[in-house]
Every structure is written in structure tokens, then in C-alpha cells.
């Protein structure tokens, strides 16, 4: 069995407005990642794609337009969980010898109308039971979940604020982030309410862009020490403030051979602050949320989403599922520029998403290790 190695990561810069199509963004990300790996299109024999706005095209259409000849192909529609889902399968494919050089790419360009269409008809339950209320996108659902979480954990608005505030401090050093200006607690609290208690900076700015990874058989780079997924853990009959990660945390850490205390940085799926905290708690990274928020994050500046996360860098549709992987790989390869975390060796990356009715049903996580 050949070990798989992530040898390059690339993010095609996010933009609030662009005339480029999803296909052009995906193609640019593939080109960028292959360039960083020192490889060419002719070297690739595996492709995994996630994109809402690629439709009606599929992974194979993209492969054709990119001129790729493939032994392995995959497409994943599971939004915030798609990046790690693709990674999980790509690693296995390389280990099994089905592919030798795999490119994983995720990205979208959703204009306002396309975004509204996507959120209104995200799935049948949404179209039938939520959109007619009317519910316009997921903000109100996560506002309800935040209230539930706040009551359960005794947290206040100023506590949740520590997530976007700390990530904004990191984003100042990421030239690709949409929000880079420093954000004070007063500014955070004074921002318009989107759906109480959520304010503007609790919601991701919608952008266009794409992220890509290159995996090869063997070689130096980043190794996937463990990956675990748990989807539809409770049939949408729970409270929604615990994710599937709670059920696989032990398996993940046992597989990685390390504990949550040994992690140097974490890229946690941050569609809303409340869900970033839920995932950290589920994986045992923040046994006391209040202490974590005001101690590790606010006081110590611990690297949670050092790209600024989606809350500051932006959410480019399905690229949100790969954004954290790309940031973690850049950090572990020592290519994170101004925001490079010192001696970064172990990273936790999570994925979360796919609101079936009241909350996200997909969750997965990976522990990555930089191997010089």
C-alpha cells in the first residue's frame, strides 16, 4: 500500500464580484494547485469536484474541458462536508492504487439570483416546508440554533463574538480575505441584526472563488493521519447543537494517535460561530466554551481558522468545504505567508453542512500532519 500525500494547496482569490464562471474559477484553481506541486495537467489521473454552479455540467464535463485523462473520478454535492468527503475517498483511492495524482477542486460563482434559487430549493424539505414561510436562506435557522445553544451553555452575544473577532485578527494577515479591517466588539455589536441574535459578522460574506488540493502517491508533504465522518446522526430529531462529530471523536483521535491538546491549529467549518463552537466541543477541543473563547482565543490568539475562516475570508459556495483544508495544508507546508503559525505540524480540519430541515446533517473531520 502506498501512502497518500497532499503535496500542494491553492486558493483562487475570492472576489465579491467577478465576471468569471464557475468553470473558469475551478480551472484556475486546478492550474494553480498543479503549478504549486510542480506538476502538469498530463500528470493527473484522478479528479474530485464539488460545485453547485457547475451544473448542468458534471465532473466529467470539467475533466473534458480541462483536458484530463482519468482513472478515478468523483463528484460530491455535500456542501460544507464535501472537501473532507472527497479527501477521504481520494486517500483511499491512492492507497488502493486506483490513482496516482489526484486533484480535488471545489468552487462556485453564485450571483444573487442563483444564490437565492439555491437556498430556496436546496432540497425538497426546504422547498416544501421552509421557503413558503417564507424563510430566505439559512440565517434564521441558525439564529434559532444559536439561541438554543446560548441557553444550553449560558453564553451571551459577546461570547460568540470572540469567534469572528479572533478570526478577523488573523484575516488582517491574509491578503485574500474579504474582511481584513480590525473588528472591535463594539463594532460587532453595532452591526445590523440579520436575525436575532445573529448580526452581520456572524454570517459569511458570499463570494466567488475556488480551492484545490493535489494528492500524490508517496512523497513529502502533508499526511492524513486520520479522517472520520458521521452523517445524519440523529435523523434531524435532536437539538441541532451537537454534530455527528461527537459520535466519532474517539475514533478520530485514536486513529490519529494524538489528542485534541496536541493540535497546533484548527480549521473548523465556520458557517456561523455557534457551529464552529459546537464542532470544537464535540471533538473535545473546548471542554469549557467560555474559557476557550476568552482564554485560548481572545487572550492567547490560538490559531482557529487562521485564514480568517469563512466569516472573514468569505464563502465561495462549495469551496467552503475545502477552504479549511487548503489553509491547513498551506500552514503545514510552511507556505502561509504573513499568517504562518510557528512550528505548525498537526492540524485539525472539520466539515459540516447540508441542512436537511432544521440543521446540518453532514459532519466530518481530518487530522493532518506536515511531513518534511
Amino acid at each position, binding site marked *: 500500500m502506498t501512502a497518500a500525500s497532499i503535496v500542494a494547496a491553492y486558493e483562487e482569490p475570492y472576489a465579491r464580484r467577478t465576471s468569471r464562471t464557475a468553470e473558469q474559477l475551478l480551472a484556475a484553481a486546478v492550474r494553480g494547485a498543479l503549478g504549486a506541486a510542480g506538476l502538469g495537467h498530463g500528470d493527473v489521473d484522478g479528479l474530485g469536484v464539488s460545485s453547485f454552479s457547475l451544473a448542468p455540467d458534471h465532473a466529467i464535463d470539467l475533466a473534458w474541458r480541462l483536458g484530463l485523462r482519468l482513472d478515478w473520478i468523483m463528484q460530491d454535492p455535500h456542501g460544507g462536508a464535501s472537501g473532507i468527503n472527497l479527501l477521504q475517498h481520494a486517500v483511499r483511492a491512492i492507497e488502493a492504487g486506483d490513482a496516482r495524482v489526484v486533484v480535488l477542486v471545489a468552487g462556485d460563482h453564485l450571483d444573487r439570483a442563483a444564490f437565492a434559487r439555491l437556498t430556496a430549493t436546496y432540497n425538497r*424539505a426546504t422547498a*416544501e*416546508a421552509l421557503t413558503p*414561510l417564507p*424563510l430566505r436562506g439559512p440565517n434564521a435557522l441558525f439564529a*434559532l440554533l444559536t439561541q438554543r445553544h446560548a441557553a444550553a451553555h449560558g453564553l451571551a452575544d459577546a461570547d460568540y463574538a470572540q469567534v469572528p473577532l479572533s478570526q478577523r485578527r488573523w484575516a488582517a494577515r491574509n491578503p485574500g480575505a474579504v474582511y481584513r479591517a480590525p473588528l472591535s466588539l463594539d463594532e460587532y455589536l453595532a452591526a445590523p441584526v440579520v436575525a436575532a441574535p445573529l448580526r452581520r459578522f456572524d454570517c459569511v460574506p458570499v463570494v466567488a472563488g475556488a480551492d484545490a488540493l493535489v494528492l500524490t502517491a508517496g512523497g513529502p508533504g502533508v499526511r492524513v493521519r486520520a479522517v472520520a465522518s458521521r452523517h445524519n446522526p440523529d435523523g434531524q*430529531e435532536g437539538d441541532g447543537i451537537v454534530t455527528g462529530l461527537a459520535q466519532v471523536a474517539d475514533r478520530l483521535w485514536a486513529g490519529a494517535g494524538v489528542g485534541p491538546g496536541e493540535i497546533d491549529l484548527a480549521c473548523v467549518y465556520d458557517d456561523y460561530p455557534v457551529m464552529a463552537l459546537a464542532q470544537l466541543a464535540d471533538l473535545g477541543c473546548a471542554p469549557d466554551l467560555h474559557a476557550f473563547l476568552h482564554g485560548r482565543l481572545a487572550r492567547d490568539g490560538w490559531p482557529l481558522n487562521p485564514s480568517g475562516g469563512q466569516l472573514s475570508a468569505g464563502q465561495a459556495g462549495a469551496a467552503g468545504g475545502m477552504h479549511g483544508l487548503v489553509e491547513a495544508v498551506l500552514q503545514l507546508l510552511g507556505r502561509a505567508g504573513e499568517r504562518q503559525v510557528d512550528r505548525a505540524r498537526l492540524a485539525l480540519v472539520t466539515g459540516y453542512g447540508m441542512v436537511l430541515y432544521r440543521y446540518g446533517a453532514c459532519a466530518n473531520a481530518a487530522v493532518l500532519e506536515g511531513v518534511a
Partner: protein
Amino acid sequence: MIELAGCADCGHPHFPPRAVCPRCHGTDLRPVPCREAVVEQVTVDAAGTRLASVRTATGTVVVGRLDADVPVGSVVPLSAWREPGAAFVPGGAPLLPTHRSPLRDLPAPDRTVPRLLQLQARRYGDKPLVVRGATTWSYRDAVERAARMAGAMAERGIEPGDRIALLAGNRLELLETVLGCAWLGAIAVPLNTALRGAGLRHALTDSGARVVVVEPDLTGVLDEAGVPVERWVVGETFPAPGPELPARPAAPGDTVAILYTSGTTGLPKGVCCPQAQFHWWGVTVGECLEITDDDVLYTCLPLFHTNALNAFFQAVCAGATYVLGERFSASRFWADVREAGATVTYLLGAMVQILLTRPAAETDTAHRVRIALSPATPAAAHAAFRERFGVLLVDGYGSTETNMVLGAHPAAQRPGYMGVVLPDHEVRVVDADGLDVPDGEPGELVCRSRQPYAYATGYFENPAATAAAYRDLWFHTGDRVVREPDGWLRFLDRLTDSIRRRGENISSLEVEQVIATHPAVAAVAVYAVPSELSEDEVMAAVVPRDGGRVDPAELTAWCAPRLARFAIPRYVDVVAQLPLTENGKVRKAVLRERGVTATTWDRTPPAAGAQHGGSAPVGPQ
């Protein structure tokens, strides 16, 4: 009530329905009625919709909409929308009207005004049809009035096809003449009483009116217009009832009335309304408002306009009673409504806002009105109006040229939206080239009906205007709308009222709705004025509330967190009143023409370097 999916094997209920029971994987799922739930969390989204997570007695958590501000922990009925504080939950309310007019399936040849009156007189006989002040006409009286008016008109030489203009307020002679014309095959031309000089001259000559029925107060206006036309002055030379004439056979497509458009731009055009159009107005609006023969309809809108005229036919089609008020008065409105015994009423333009801004009074709920037709209701007004007055506002879309094209079930009203496409109509949203725009993008509403003669047949003796309006065989409404992916349509602007500032399209309505919610503002109009750079600047004319004052700098600062930066007005005029049409619509052409004056407040954009351009007033350095 909503229906959960219940498992026949283990008894566990869930929502929304899955393919198998989420607990035991049983496949025998049956509907379980569920009538109430406890509110666990509540939030209000950016559009003002109050959404809640509620838990039923069986533990099922459902996301729903609350129509009132109820505290967490309250028990709310599910979908019982008539009660304040009720939750609307999907599956509970149908989208389209379910009430069915008994005259919907009337055979086509019977879809004429005389046949409707005769049919309903046979059924309702001595029941009151029309009430105006102390006078009441029964259904039978209405037929007799129409037949004898036709007789009187014939005696004076009026022939089928002749146009009879009307220049009068809400009085029975006006209705009597309209019905008499329908009986005789003549054509009634009710004119806006605000018409003067050239406008009046145009309407009289364009319609070729043979006679004008005029009330005494308005004869001077006729003198000024200077069109030599025979006058029947109400109370003087207006004819006494003549011999009863049998109704002249009419086809559903025969023109029965010509209504002149309000003409906010250009010369008014005469809209030819066929007989069947009134039948369909009666049926469709009656279905949207669920009008039955128990209802009393009260309108104080002007009878020369399509809205009040159609309300009469809603009464006829449902066997209800139609009470004609004199004119809208905010201070008298609820007293008039109560005196009429009204259960249904009609609101238009600024009336909703005007009624809401009046101080609360005991008379607010001392009436029987359950529902009101209120096109283009501001989103925030729905809940406020229902809570304060106990009246459900029903939105919709229709025009003199069309019929009721958009609407929704009373229980399914979505604040800020006109409705969905009603049965019998087809709708598209198109760009300037007539191509469909994607859902979510603004475009012009175009429509057509699948029912013959449900719409106007064209503009009177103006084939060029008719062809232009019906290009590609779709009626072009001139209204800019957005259709959401789920089929709901939202009004943005008249095409002529849209604003374009530095590449951004701005809906004047959206800006108006934000400013209107400012506590110091009684009324507002937002419109385009030329920019010294290019395209437009946004300007607002604001009327302060009684005794109050509006500070433009404070007002625009207040807009900052509520509007896109580019949509915040640069210019503000504080005015005592807005120029209105007789129907209460703002005449924006007048405001645009007045433009920026020496007294206009100008939020000159801050110089370069100001990050929050426009979000705060700029003072002297």
C-alpha cells in the same frame, strides 16, 4: 392544524414526512393531526418575518412563522391564522384561494352585466344590493333601475354604442347610468373628477361622448374645458326613470365601459372594458377575499375607478351587499365602516399607513370588518394592521387593463409580496427586449388570461397604443417586479419610477418602505433626480407626522443600517403634503419635475477617504 407523519408500528410522529419512521424504520406512516405547539425560540429575519422553532406535545420540532410577537413558552395554534399570535406552518394553508365563486362556471353567454343582474335578482330578490346614505336598492330594484334608466336614455335618443361620459362623485346616479348603459348597449365613460382643462377636454373628445352626466358642482369645470357636449346635470336635467326596456342582447366581448388611465405620463388612454371583464373581477376578487352572501362590502374609493366599480360586481356575483361611501376620511373611516355593517373593505395607496399613524382609539376594533383588499401593502403593515384593527390585509395585483392576476389564499399572505399567479392567468417577467429574466432579477411584468374577455380589449380608437401594450401578445403592465424562485412576486416600481444610480438599480418602493417606518415620518415618496455625474440621484419627499419634525441628516443616518449604501437618499425635501391622484397614489412626475430646489437638504457625499460614505451626516469641519 398541521399533519405530522405518524408511525403505525411504534407510534412515533415526525415532520416533515420521511420515507420511513426515523425511530423504527416502519413504513406504515399515517397523518397525525396536530393543533398546537409551544414556542421555544423566536427570531425576526432581515425582511421582518418572525420565525420560530416550536415543539408539539409529541416532541416534534417544527419551524414556523409567527404572525405576532408572542413570548417564548407560549402555546400557539398551528395555522389558525385568524387569531393574533397564531403560527403559520407549512402544510396548514393552501397557496391559492380555495373559496369558489358560485358564478365561476357561468356559461360564457351569461357573462354580461345585464345577465348577472337578472340571474342574481331571481335568486336574491328583495335583499339589499346597493346602499348609499339613506337609499337602498334591492337586487330587484337594481334590475328595474337599469331597465328604466335605459328607457329614459332611449327616449332621449341614446343608441347602442353611444358613449355617455360621467363626471360625478360617489353617487347613485353614476351607478344608475353605468347599469343603464349596460342595459341599453351604450358605453359608460366614468371620468376622474379631478380632471381639468386639457385633460378633461382630451377625455371628452377622445371618447366622442354624446352626453356628459355631471354633478352641479362640476359644471364650471365643464365650462372651462369648453367642449360642446350635451349635459345631464344631476338633480336638474338628469332624466327621471323612463319606461322599463328589455335588456339589449350583449356579447361578453362588447365594450360596456371606457375607463381612462390615470395618465401619470402622457395623455390618458381610454381602456375598453368588455362585459365579461366585470364578471371575472367579481369572481376572482370574490374568491381571494372569500366573499359570500353574508358579507357587506364597503368602499369609499372613487366609483369612476376600476377598484370601486369592481367591488360592486363582487357583491353581485356573491349575493352580498355593496355600501358606497362618499370619500376616504381617516378620522371617520372606522365609524363609516361600522355604520355600514361592513365585513369587507378596500384600501389603496397611503390609506393603510394613514390609518396606522392615527392615535389608537376604542373604535379601532368596534366593527365587523374581517378582511380588506389592500394592494401593495408595506410588509411591516400586515401584522400591525391585523393586531390593531383585527383586519386581515390581502394583497394582490390587477389593473384597469387586466383583472386580478396575482394573489394568494388569505391565510398564505406573504408580507411584501403581491402573490402568486392565479389560475386562468399566465405571467412572465421580461427585460426591455421582451426576454425572460431569471427568477430573482427585476423585470417588467407581462401577463395574459386564458379566459375570453377577462382583460380589456384595448385602448379606445388607439390601435397603435393597443398593439404596443400587447406586443408579442402579452399585456405589458409597465410595472417592474421580481419573481422569486418559489413563484411569489414582489412589486418594485412603475418602470417610469425606477432609479438608476451609478450602475445600481434602486427600487423606490424599497427605500420608501424603510423611510416610512421611521417614527417621525407620516408619508414619503422616493424618486429620481438627475445626477451631476451621470444617471440619477435618489431624492425623498417626506411629510412629518402631526406636530413633529423630520431631521434629514438624522433620517439618512437612520437609513444607513437598513438600506444598501447606494440607495440612501442624497436629497431630502420636508414637505407638508405629497401631490396625490384621486386614488391616493403619489404623482411622482410632479415631484421629479420640481426636483432639487434651494430648500432641499443635500447630503453631499463625503470627500475621498471617508470609509462610511453616506452613513452619517457631515457637519462643518
